[in-house]
């Protein structure tokens, strides 16, 4: 096994920075080149502002910003990212920033994957260094595979809901999980998105050049398109229906099922008064106890913690999941029946 994450300082070229413009080194490059925000406000830089705006529009519409690196205009690739994050910070719309961050993460993911596949020399050193330094995941190389430690894998893979990511569907040996290049970078996409998001949030801006302002306003207008979700169904999910049926029949619903029912209904805005009667057929029903427990779960008594509805995964492991096709793509019963509004 060889570990390519050596301690030597890796010299990054402008080509690398154009691929991974969120790296700290990108800011340093800019500083070294002597360019500042005020200068960027000059009309000469207008195309960069437009490029930056375009980059945001593409990203926030759910696409990945085109790979322009082949054109070898590395400086404008890097600069458009920097300007884009300044525009986003000024607009201050979290939805846009989050969408942009995720899309940029996916863009970087493509490069990381490419770099991992290309012959195993210096090219490999950079992606592994990014993965290790930014996210603390050590990636080792064994033959043709990339391997990471089981706990490192689990921490990330549990955020995916496709069965192929379950540990049981992976090659696992001696505390290590075997992955290909694509899977290795896919695993850190969310974190990469969060990293970029945090980076944007932490920018300290005093004033922006006039020439930026128009596009900032455009971003605010753009953000209005992304209204939140709407309900397409008022039906209960099958797990909740099952819980209600069991209780109606006067059969015993396990504690975990009662917890599901209570947290689900509370999250849908039902009051304790409305929920208590559902339990009256339970074989061990005691109104006082039921009320006390509901108050506890709702956070109105006890520690004040408001308990959340358990995830679909948890319910599956408790044999309380009775998924139907309408459950596709949800990870928590409270999402059942909700659909994202199609962006016009």
């Amino acid at each position, binding site marked *: 096994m060889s570990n390519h994450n050596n301690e030597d300082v890796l010299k990054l070229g402008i080509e690398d920075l154009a691929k991974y413009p969120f790296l700290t080194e990108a800011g340093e490059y800019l500083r070294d080149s002597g360019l500042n925000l005020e200068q960027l406000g000059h009309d000469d830089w207008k195309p960069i502002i437009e490029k930056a705006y375009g980059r945001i529009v593409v990203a926030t519409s759910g696409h990945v910003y085109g790979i322009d690196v082949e054109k070898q205009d590395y400086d404008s690739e890097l600069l458009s990212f920097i300007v884009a994050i300044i525009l986003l910070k000024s607009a201050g719309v979290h939805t846009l920033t989050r969408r942009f961050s995720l899309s940029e993460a996916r863009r970087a993911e493509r490069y990381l994957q490419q770099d991992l596949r290309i012959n195993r020399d210096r090219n490999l050193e950079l992606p592994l260094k990014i993965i290790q330094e930014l996210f603390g995941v050590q990636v080792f190389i064994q033959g043709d595979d990339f391997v990471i*430690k*089981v*706990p490192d894998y*689990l*921490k990330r*893979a*549990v955020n995916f809901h496709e*069965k*192929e990511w*379950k*540990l*049981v*569907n*992976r*090659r*696992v*040996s*001696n*505390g*290590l999980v075997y992955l290909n290049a694509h899977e290795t970078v896919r695993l850190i996409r969310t974190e990469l998105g969060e990293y970029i998001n945090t980076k944007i949030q932490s920018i300290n801006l005093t004033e922006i050049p006039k020439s930026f302002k128009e596009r900032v306003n455009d971003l605010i207008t753009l953000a209005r398109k992304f209204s939140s979700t709407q309900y397409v169904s008022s039906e209960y999910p099958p797990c909740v229906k099952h819980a209600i049926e069991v209780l109606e029949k006067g059969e015993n619903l396990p504690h975990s099922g009662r917890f599901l029912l209570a947290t689900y209904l509370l999250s849908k805005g039902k009051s304790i008064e409305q929920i208590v009667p559902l339990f009256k057929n339970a074989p061990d029903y005691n109104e006082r106890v039921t009320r006390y427990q509901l108050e506890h779960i709702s956070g109105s008594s006890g*520690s*004040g*913690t408001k308990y959340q509805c358990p*995830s679909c*995964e*948890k319910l599956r*492991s*408790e044999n309380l999941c009775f998924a139907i096709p309408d459950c596709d793509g949800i990870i928590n019963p409270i999402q059942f029946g909700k659909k994202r509004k199609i962006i016009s």
Partner: protein
Amino acid sequence: MNEKNTAIVEGAFKEYYFNRFDLIHVPPRAQEREFGYQKINSGMIRHLVARNDKELHLLLMREVPSDVYCSNAYYNFPNLPMSEKDWKGADLIFDIDAKDLGLSCRKEHILTKCVSCKNSMTDPKPSCEKCGSTKFETVSVACKNCISESKNEVKKLIEILTTDLGIKNEEIKVYFSGNEGFHVHIINNLYEPLGSHERADLADYLVFNGSIPESFGIKRQGISKPILPTVEEKGWRGRVAQTLFPSKSKAVKTSKEIITGGYSAFQLKLEEIRKTRGVHLDPKVTMDVHRIFRLEGSINSKSGLSKIHCTDLDSFDPFSEACLLGSDETEVLVNCPVAIKLKNKKFGPYKNEIISLPKYAAVYMICKGLANSV
């Protein structure tokens, strides 16, 4: 439990807690853990701290609990309410219980007890022969087979932990649970920070739950030739291959059968493999990162047996090695329709008999609800 029974049980527990300090220790990093206990007929008292053996022993002598627990989790403030504890991590824990193994021996040693008159019987009846009540509860008594099957599960667990998950033998501690199963504790820094979700997936790995045919080369629509696992492979692919191809000479024929059988048939095969090769553990215990778990050396009030460390699992006999209460003669009225063996002595069957038993056996019967003090 009635007052007289409580007096016998508490008396026996007190004697044990006074005399067996050698067996009762706080786990490593005790000051970061939450302790809790229960007394007979009363609720759980939690959020306690026992920084060292001395503090723990004092607590045991003062309270004479029926059950003692300690968190597998580490907290900055273990004695504060749950939301303020500041969780830092938790040891991995596994619970293997004979009741979850679907064993055929169970019907021979699960007794049905009438809720109102406590009459116990081996075969469930529609109503109690003595009082006519129709409400029953069940209780399981000592069974060698249950223990030996549970041991097999522990061995399966240890095999996967060490070969697949990279956990060293010295990081694994196996305990008899004090009733009908085993607790396995892992002390390993890498796994310690994992949250509940991650532990649930880890438990699924051990149980072999949620596997899909694609992971073993069988696709829904196969254009390319499926690549089935081989016995030399590591992890579950290897285990599946060992089960599918027990004989080398028939491997080619079996492979063909599997490929023609298709996706759904293979899914059923995986389900069968789960039943035999997967570890039968309780995933709820493994995924709970705030649990307080029975403390090593303490008595389990379901039986009066102790939760003790098993150094040699194969030779371990819980009904003698974990049966650690005194042996003074104690008179009880026993109704136990099957014979049980404790400390290599056979007791019963007893049919509503007043009899003098060694204290450990009397307490065992009382804890199981099969005896009353006279």
